[in-house]
């Protein structure tokens, strides 16, 4: 968790004054969800915790279940089993048949497509939540003006949603959600509707705004860069299951699935480790001598040297390409294959090699010319054992 500015929190202050029964701690409640959601034939099973002030990035490919998760949290859909709690509030509990509908959940949701009301101007959009929650027109507008000021939107107050840009609409949607004084903030693909240029600006601003929010924040995204930059911790979802949790650095270094590995540009293999020889028999064929990335994988004194399932990560830049079989003294993994394709990246060439196991290899364009590499060229690949790191499945190790 990041340190928080002690002055002027964006939320929480209002409730403390109006409800003396509740302590400030109750409002700073963590989100705890453990349950399943069924939508048609799709089934999402999720366990997650987000602490107050923490930004949890929920990362996954399209169709992984991100939207389903979001709808369950916001109360637009119900859990089929399990529960959702926010601080001292039970929002959904299939066991006790508790279900708090969306309009009574203290949750702010910023939709991917913003969904600003087209018939209201910017100020009245932001004033909507205070208004429907019982504030008078003048009071609601005053509250809206405060939020517009904080998010630097005052100049747009009288514009209609179709008269503002995508980046501005995103900020208005955030202001509208925050004006409801939520205890949990959900952002659905917050930057996906923006063009690349606007995205950089908005990302920086959005980060600074959510940094001031005192409750838990969930950012749903399929963009790993967005997730890594915005979130304190990542939760990776695939096919309706949580496959990995960890800090962005952990996830990037030791991805649990091919999806994440591809996102962070890593060769990822699954296999079975023989701890005694430090050799991994890969599922796709081939054997690698590896370095053990996790301490608990190392054979400790007296422990049984049983083989176990591991992941092996190998950076494309750690692999060397040869046109003849290499001879070296240091322990290396050497295997043979055929160049399948070459792709020019910014400062290097990425080669896809058909081999056992297949690999992505990054080389300089000079090397491509020197070795006369083209699709169909037979090559030898080598990688130092110290660069070939084996680690246990991160997804199975759920520590909160």
């Amino acid at each position: 968790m990041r340190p928080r500015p002690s002055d002027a929190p964006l939320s929480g202050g209002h409730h403390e004054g109006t409800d003396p029964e509740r302590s400030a701690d109750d409002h700073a409640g963590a989100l705890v969800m453990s349950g399943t959601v069924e939508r048609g034939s799709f089934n999402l099973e999720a366990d997650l915790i987000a602490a107050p002030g923490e930004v949890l990035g929920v990362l996954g490919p399209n169709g992984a279940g991100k939207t389903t998760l979001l709808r369950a949290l916001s109360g637009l859909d119900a859990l089929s089993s399990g529960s959702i709690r926010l601080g001292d509030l039970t929002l959904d509990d299939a066991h006790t048949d508790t279900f708090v509908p969306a309009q009574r959940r203290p949750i702010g949701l910023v939709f991917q497509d913003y969904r600003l009301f087209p018939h209201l101007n910017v100020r009245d959009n932001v004033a909507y939540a205070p208004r429907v929650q019982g504030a008078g027109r003048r009071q609601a507008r005053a509250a809206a003006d405060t939020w517009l000021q904080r998010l630097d939107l005052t100049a747009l107050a009288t514009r209609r949603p179709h008269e503002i840009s995508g980046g501005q609409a995103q900020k208005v949607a955030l202001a509208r959600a925050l004006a409801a004084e939520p205890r949990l903030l959900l952002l659905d693909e917050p930057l996906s509707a923006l063009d690349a240029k606007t995205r950089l600006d908005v990302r920086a601003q959005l980060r600074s705004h959510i940094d001031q929010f005192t409750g838990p924040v969930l950012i749903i995204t399929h963009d790993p860069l967005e997730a890594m930059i915005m979130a304190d911790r990542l939760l990776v979802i695939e096919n309706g299951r949580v496959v990995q949790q960890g800090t962005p650095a952990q996830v990037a270094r030791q991805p649990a699935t091919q999806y994440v590995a591809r996102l962070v540009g890593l060769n990822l293999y699954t296999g079975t480790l023989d701890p005694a020889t430090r050799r991994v028999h890969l599922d796709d064929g081939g054997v690698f001598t590896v370095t053990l990335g996790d301490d608990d994988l190392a054979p400790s004194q007296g422990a049984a040297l049983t083989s176990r399932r591991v992941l092996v990560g190998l950076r494309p830049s750690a692999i060397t390409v040869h046109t003849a079989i290499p001879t070296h003294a240091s322990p290396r993994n050497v295997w043979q294959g055929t160049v399948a394709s070459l792709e020019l990246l910014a400062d290097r060439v990425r080669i896809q090699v058909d081999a056992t196991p297949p690999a992505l290899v990054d080389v300089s364009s000079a090397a491509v010319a020197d070795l006369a590499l083209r699709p169909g060229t037979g090559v030898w690949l080598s990688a130092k054992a110290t660069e070939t790191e084996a680690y246990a499945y991160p997804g199975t190790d759920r520590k909160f």
Partner: protein
Amino acid sequence: MTSSDPPPAGQVPAQRTRQGARAVQARGAIPWPLGIPALLAALFLLVPLAGLLVRAPWRGLPHLLADSQVLDALRLSLVCASAATAASLVFGVPLAWVLARSQARGISVLRALVTLPLVLPPVVGGVALLLAFGRQGILGRLLDEWTGVTLPFTTAGVIIAETFVAMPFLVITVEGAFRAADRGYEEAAATLGASRLTVFRTVTIPLIAPSLLAGAVLCWARALGEFGATITFAGNFPGRTQTMPLAVYVALESDPEAAVALSLVLLVVSIAVLAGLRDRWLSTGTTP
């Protein structure tokens, strides 16, 4: 179509002609098997209206229209059509919402039944109303016994007959709008703390406002022109139940010139409705 290079002087006329033909080809000429029936259809619709204008007793018009019976009929028509539209809005919009949103079984059967008056001959509607709300009708008898109120052959009866015939036009228009409305906005309103009724009032209704207006105008125009159900259920009493269409029909036998004059008034009202809707409804349907 025009070339930037000036053509040689001698070729200009030939090129013009060819370009004219090309323009027609490019836009698509109307094939005669479609063009001739289309022309006949347009004439068929427009000639009677032209006849009305040609045969109108323009000179005696002010005198004819100043007749108190004509003014009574006009006033009654406007009041009853407006009341029927108001009743249709109050009851028909919630019905349209239920038809569009309810997941209950049998809702599609209900939809078919409540829109039946759209295709039912209005006279049959009038008979049905008599059987329900007449003094001996299933509801009418109870109403008479309990309150002493009878509906047939009263101004209230006119409003009921017009509502019966015209409300389905509003319901069907607004139901379509409720179906097509983006539910995403309603979800957004719910996450901001709005109850379902508040969502309906503050988001759904403003979003479908153009369709609501169109449905209300359709409903009003249909009520204004109502004849069959009205004369069957409410009768034809000048000043009480004789609306403009009834007055036109009666006048045609006794005073044809007055009938033409009354028809002219209804035509003017219809044209005014069309003109009023042109921008908001008849054009491409942009939201205001």
